[in-house]
């Protein structure tokens, strides 16, 4: 059953199009990674799902209800990002109390167990916390709410690597114990890789790819070998990335549409095949050839 369903969703602001004719459907109880470069439309997509943003055209439904300005959608979803503006008059403990009043499935024990570990104090004021601790609190709040739809927009901003990895473990355990539908956008995709089941690749407001993580791993292939040999094999491909490898050989990344037989033949010809990690794949798939930073710097 799909919990979040977008159909031809478009959002335009005065000058730019943030989402351009986006359609997708996210099944219940999955963790989906939202990957894209800055300004690709990740935040707009998540905020539309949360019901904060009015679609310019098309629709986005959460559990069968149009999400915009919808009380039921609000009751069943939570949106966590780094700019959560908590009232300064309430301490963290009081904010948790408010959370408990508002969210039906609120889990009191989770914050209790995690506060100490992550160095948070119930008497702290959110505005006075460090950036990393702010994010930590937001994340704990978001998980404790146990909303059927949990939208996390760069939730790990400012956390150091150790806290991030701890937090991912917490998230995974929470998800297994209390399954929910999670969409997570993160710059640290390499760290969430094993957490994600599906991935949505978004670029310039369009969905480039919506596949399972396994398919994403298979999407691209790295080939290392003699240049002439490689050119032969990659005639019909667009080379997404090339670099010189050791011993006069070349390394190229292309879309992996080779048959089993072709791959065997390549290996026999002395080409080394390698997998491309999903994060790297995402970068190459959304990279604009003409906008490569090296090109820009060279042209100067």
């Amino acid at each position, binding site marked *: *059953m799909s*919990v979040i369903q977008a159909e031809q969703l478009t959002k335009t602001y005065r000058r730019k199009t943030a989402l351009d004719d986006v359609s997708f459907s996210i099944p*219940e109880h999955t963790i989906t990674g939202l990957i894209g470069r800055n300004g690709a439309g990740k935040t707009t997509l998540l*905020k539309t799902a949360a*019901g*904060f*943003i*009015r679609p310019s055209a098309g629709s986005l439904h959460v*559990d069968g209800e149009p999400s*915009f*300005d*919808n*009380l*039921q959608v*609000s*009751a*069943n979803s939570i*949106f966590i990002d780094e700019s*959560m*503006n*908590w*009232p300064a*008059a*309430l301490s963290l403990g*009081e904010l948790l109390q*408010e*959370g408990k*009043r*508002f*969210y*039906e*499935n609120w889990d009191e024990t989770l914050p209790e167990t995690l506060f100490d570990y992550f160095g948070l104090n119930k008497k702290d004021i959110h505005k006075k916390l460090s950036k990393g601790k702010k994010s930590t609190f937001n994340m704990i709040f978001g998980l404790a709410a146990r909303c*059927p*739809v949990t939208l996390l927009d760069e939730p790990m901003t400012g956390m150091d690597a150790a806290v991030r990895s701890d937090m991912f473990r917490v998230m995974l355990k929470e998800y297994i114990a209390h399954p929910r*539908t999670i969409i997570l956008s993160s710059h640290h995709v390499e760290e969430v890789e094993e957490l994600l089941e599906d991935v949505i690749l978004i670029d310039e407001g369009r969905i480039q790819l919506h596949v399972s993580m396994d398919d994403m791993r298979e999407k691209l292939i790295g080939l290392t070998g003699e240049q002439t040999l490689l050119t032969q094999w990659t005639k019909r491909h667009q080379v997404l990335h090339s670099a010189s490898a050791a011993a006069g050989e070349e390394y190229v990344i292309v879309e992996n549409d080779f048959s089993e037989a072709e791959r065997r033949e390549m290996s026999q010809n002395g080409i080394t095949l390698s997998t491309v990690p999903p994060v790297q794949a995402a970068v190459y798939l959304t990279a604009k050839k003409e906008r490569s930073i090296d090109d820009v710097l060279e042209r100067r």
Partner: protein
Amino acid sequence: MSSNVVNRTTAIGRLFTFKCRAFTEILSSLLLLQLFAVLLSSTIFSTVTTSTFQEGFDVTMDTYSSDFVIVFTMLWGFLCSLNITTKAYREDDFLFVTNRLTSHLSTILFLCAVSAAGGITAALSGFLIRVLAYYIHDNVILSTAFGPGLFLTGAAAAAGYVLLSTAAGYLAGIIIQWHRAFKLLIPAVVIGLMSLRGADIAEQFRSFLYLESFFPMFAVKVFGMLVLVFGAGLLFAKRLEVRQ
């Protein structure tokens, strides 16, 4: 999906309670401001009337009242509600369970509550001002008899005035969200109108509300104006995004 169903009234109630807890600085600022106004009212801000008699002696009468406190409270109400419409406050609700309607209605409910508090304390300040004036000035004190009925209507009227100014602030705040240019335009229009037709407007207002001596009629007029202003606010807000 195990759906949590929330009805509107429950959501508004929860949001209202949340606001009462989270916006405490609004109430503490009211207290400070009124205290300041009381001090001014009981010392320098009195209405002085001097009557000269033929026999060659003058009678100077200082009137100490809470009028000034009420005006101050109205100003406070205007600024507070303007403040509530800024990003820092208005997005608070969306951390929790709400939609636009419940958010606005709970805010209006909150404004009613603080206006009632402001009205009652402003009316009570009248007593404090008289007591202070008695000790500060060594003149003869004349005071009219003061029953609980009169006090209650006074407090209700003060609350009505304060609520009206919060409504005005709220509407202004919502219009500003449309476009930042209104930040300048609204004061410009208000000041412009005041300098051109200020006397007329004040007279209109005076005869429409201030001189209304029949309390139920006053209440109906205030209520009508509130519905108009808050209604306009809700209508304008409908065109905005929920949270940017």
